[in-house]
């Protein structure tokens, strides 16, 4: 009886955690993989591993960081295991066009395409900082880098996006 109640509590705790953090997890996995199907696989595997290791999570406030760390590992593992072929970024953009274009403004859809074109080294810290609210030190720990390297990547990521947008605007005005 007690064991059953413990199991229900555990399941409820996990359910609450997942409901709150699934959107973040999916978005992180999507921007990492640039592939909706892969992102869904990563989220599924991450949650499975998280369920198995739920008792290791002592502080619920650390849950998001914990899950994103698992997701990052699962993403790498998935690519290693399935030996996914390298796909041209234009093909990736075409494949995920419904997702990228699901924005109220053209500018936003263009920005998504520009983020798609960023190298993973730049995309990941940008997502962690802008979307997940990570500090530079937290990104450094997450990615196994030093803070200086993280700042350089963030600087370059934004510079590339701004440059892509400057070129887009110049193209629109025909200059």
């Amino acid at each position: 009886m007690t064991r059953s109640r413990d199991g229900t509590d555990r399941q409820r705790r996990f359910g609450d955690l997942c409901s709150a953090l699934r959107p973040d997890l999916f978005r992180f996995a999507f921007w990492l993989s640039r592939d909706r199907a892969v992102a869904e696989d990563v989220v599924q595997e991450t949650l499975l591993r998280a369920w198995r290791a739920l008792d290791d999570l002592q502080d619920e406030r650390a849950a998001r960081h914990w899950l994103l760390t698992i997701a990052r590992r699962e993403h790498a593992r998935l690519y290693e295991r399935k030996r996914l072929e390298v796909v041209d970024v234009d093909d990736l953009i075409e494949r995920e066009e419904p997702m990228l274009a699901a924005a109220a403004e053209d500018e936003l859809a263009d920005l998504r395409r520009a983020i798609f074109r960023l190298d993973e080294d730049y995309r990941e810290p940008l997502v962690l900082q802008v979307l997940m609210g990570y500090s530079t030190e937290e990104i450094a720990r997450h990615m196994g880098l030093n803070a200086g390297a993280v700042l350089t990547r963030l600087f370059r990521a934004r510079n590339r996006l701004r440059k892509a947008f400057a070129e887009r605007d110049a193209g629109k005005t025909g200059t």
Partner: protein
Amino acid sequence: MNCLEYRRQMAAEPRSESAELLAHARSCAACAEFTTQMRQFDQRIEAALRIPVPLWSSIGSITERWPRAPLALAASLLLAVTVAAILWMLVPRSSLADDIVDHMKHEPYAMQAGGTVSAEALAHAMGGKPMPAPASLGRVTYAQSCWFRGNFVPHLVIDEGGEPVTVFLLAHETVKEPVQFTEDGYTGVIVPAGEGAIAVLTWNESQLAAIAKRISQSMAPEGATK
């Protein structure tokens, strides 16, 4: 700190509020303007990164997927798929309300949107789908094209006498008759509308039927109004 150092730092951490950066911005109007631009651009990046999130199967599918051996895993997966398929065939519409409420939980901020959505943004959210008569909607405070059950569907919030009311236009779903539900604090109804269905959710149950009727009737094909 000089302007070059400041801008390098700000381009890497636009939301930084370190004392040193703030002091420089106060003394340099050009760098203060640069900061404003970077923060605005960062808001655009954040909006771009917030892609629509698809719905998943229930948590139970995760927690029950943890058997002890590969064979047991395969067997239980097969069993789960079979049971799910049978249940799906027997009660095909039973989870539509669950999925709608689940989706609401993923966009909690939608109910708090206060501004009025432009006609252009509303048209974009509709994605070319049949649209209710504008008068039946009134003031729209939120409009997004959301990934739902394998399709992009318009997710709207309208202002009904100061109360937010959520409307999903489900062109890909069909219901034969109105289905009412109450779940996790939400009260809603799914009704046939045009070729598909609409779902209306609100915290004020007394308004529900009237709003659903008003919108669904405005979408009925000509000559089919009841």
